[in-house]
């Protein structure tokens, strides 16, 4: 008779895996935070609904909390001033979720949030984790480089961005005034400026990671904005807002962050060439976002991935989400700008969303 001890690692693993098989897939984190901007002198309340991953979640490296002033809530503060109303910002987000997950488990499964009759804005972002995972897989490659994972990430992004817009168009409260997507900045732009372990089949040489990845994120961003144009959405170009300086660094007569923006109607090839070739010298890592030639702000947290933010956090993570309310930080915005609009990543993205805010609810 053979006796096998349960202390054997192989058997122990098998036992745990059988008991906890669902945990095999547990690698994302729901982070749902709702915050109402409670403006004095009014009880009229409208709603902003935001679906997304860790960006709209306000992920800050904690599994318990998330930033209170994540981009959609920042946008809500601008709306509160414009509409002289309370604004409830409902963030339904899942950190680590790929585009299909955001689509299915947030936008579709949690559609009721955008069906409420006081909803006026629906916004979403996705695809960042498709890109991160494809990048991680590519970095692990040895031998001949295989680009299929990067292409799959772009195709998945296109599929679910289009599906999300169609679904929101068909299911959101009919009185919604603004539907808007935010595209992707490039986290780790400097860190990716290294050679791959794999070699390109055509050249036999290692490839520069950043040079390799940039066209893929550009293609994702193009289609986010292009589908927005086709399907009645607006597109907040976070790539341009984060990656380009707010002054003319190359003497082409344009503010870098303006020059990088998607141009409605341009072709994919034209956009990708503009970003990856023509204006590439103006791209800078968002860890040093230059608001002028002599001042820069760190838009990226210490994980070199997620946006910085102003203020504290709210409960949102392993122990559930939260909701709350409080007075706005700012009640008016001269010229449409918060005093801190360009000092933090989330403030910048929230401002980029607010540019499209309707004049009335």
């Amino acid at each position, binding site marked *: 008779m053979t006796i096998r001890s349960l202390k054997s690692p192989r058997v122990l693993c098998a036992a745990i895996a059988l008991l906890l098989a669902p945990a095999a897939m547990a690698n*994302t984190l729901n982070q749902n935070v709702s915050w109402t901007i409670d403006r004095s002198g009014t009880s009229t309340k409208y709603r902003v609904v935001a679906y997304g991953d*860790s960006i709209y979640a306000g992920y800050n490296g904690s599994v318990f909390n998330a930033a209170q002033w994540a981009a959609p809530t920042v946008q809500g503060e601008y709306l509160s001033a414009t509409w002289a109303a309370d604004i409830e910002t409902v963030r339904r987000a899942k950190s680590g979720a790929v585009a299909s997950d955001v689509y299915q488990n947030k936008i579709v499964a949690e559609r009721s949030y955008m069906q409420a009759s006081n909803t006026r804005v629906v916004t979403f972002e996705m695809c960042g984790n498709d890109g991160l995972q494809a990048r991680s897989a590519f970095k692990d490659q040895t031998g001949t480089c295989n680009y299929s994972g990067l292409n799959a990430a772009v195709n*998945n992004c296109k*599929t679910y961005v289009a599906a999300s817009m169609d679904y929101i168009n068909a299911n959101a409260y009919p009185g919604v005034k603004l539907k808007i997507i935010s595209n992707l900045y490039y986290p780790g732009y400097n860190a990716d400026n290294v050679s791959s372990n794999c070699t390109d089949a055509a050249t036999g040489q290692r490839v520069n990671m950043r040079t390799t990845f940039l066209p893929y994120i550009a293609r994702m961003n193009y289609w986010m904005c292009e589908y927005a144009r086709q399907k009645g959405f607006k597109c907040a170009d976070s790539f341009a807002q984060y990656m380009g300086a707010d002054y003319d660094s190359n003497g082409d007569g344009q503010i870098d962050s303006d020059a990088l923006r998607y141009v409605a109607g341009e072709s994919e090839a034209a956009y990708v060439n503009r970003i990856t070739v023509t204006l590439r010298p103006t791209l800078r890592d968002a860890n*040093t976002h230059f608001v002028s030639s002599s001042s820069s702000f760190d838009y990226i947290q210490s994980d070199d991935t997620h946006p910085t933010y102003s203020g504290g956090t709210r409960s949102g993570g392993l122990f559930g989400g939260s909701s709350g309310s409080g007075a706005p930080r700012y009640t008016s915005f001269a010229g449409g700008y918060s005093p801190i609009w360009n000092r933090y990543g989330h403030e910048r993205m929230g401002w980029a969303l607010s540019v499209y805010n309707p004049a009335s609810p």
Partner: protein
Amino acid sequence: MPAHRDPTTPSPSADGGGVRVSTHSGEGRGAWRHALPWLAVAAIAVCAGLGYLLMSSTQGGSDTAAPSVAQVAADVDDGDPDAPGAMAPAASAKPRAAVPAGTAHRGEGLSLDLADYIDPSKPVPSTAEIIRTLNEAGIHSGIGAFNPPGTSPPMVGLAVPEDVPLPEGYVRHYQTTDDGQDIEPILMFSPDYEFFDAAGRPIPIPENRVVPPDMAPPGLPGRRVDIPPSREGGGG
């Protein structure tokens, strides 16, 4: 002496290093504080990772497929108390039978949410520990694709207060901690300038462009900034 760079030439910052000089970890947790739950999660995740690899190799990559009626039919509403309850989804959606609010997701098929597998009565590993465990199990998806907090910590450099005039060729750089606390601005070299000594020879600039004390222009306090400690004890 700084010299302005030709604006038509590429800025070196576009290919610059961006390497941070601080070793501040940001996590702020003792190594042994969560040793036991960490070991438990490690064991689970390593085993789960094997299961994940097996499952993913046989499931055929559903992410590549366009959303279909069958996929969308799996939707279950999370329940918004303010929403009109009877509003049916349009487009390709076909909701299943009503599910009481708040009970929808858990236990229905495979959830991807870590919260479904964490015992709230026990200490939870830090995010960095969870990411590391997932990675060691070969899982680089979900938050396993995130860098841990502290990968690129705030840079420590010379303080350059707002009331101190900024010399030409330098930058006042502002940073924030992961828990939202502002850090006093530091002095950096501008990417738009090149620097030369009195003999006209180029002066090498640190890769991260942070001005070291021995290269500081006159008139600055000569004090290094402090990174405030975490308010939350986590998240780094």
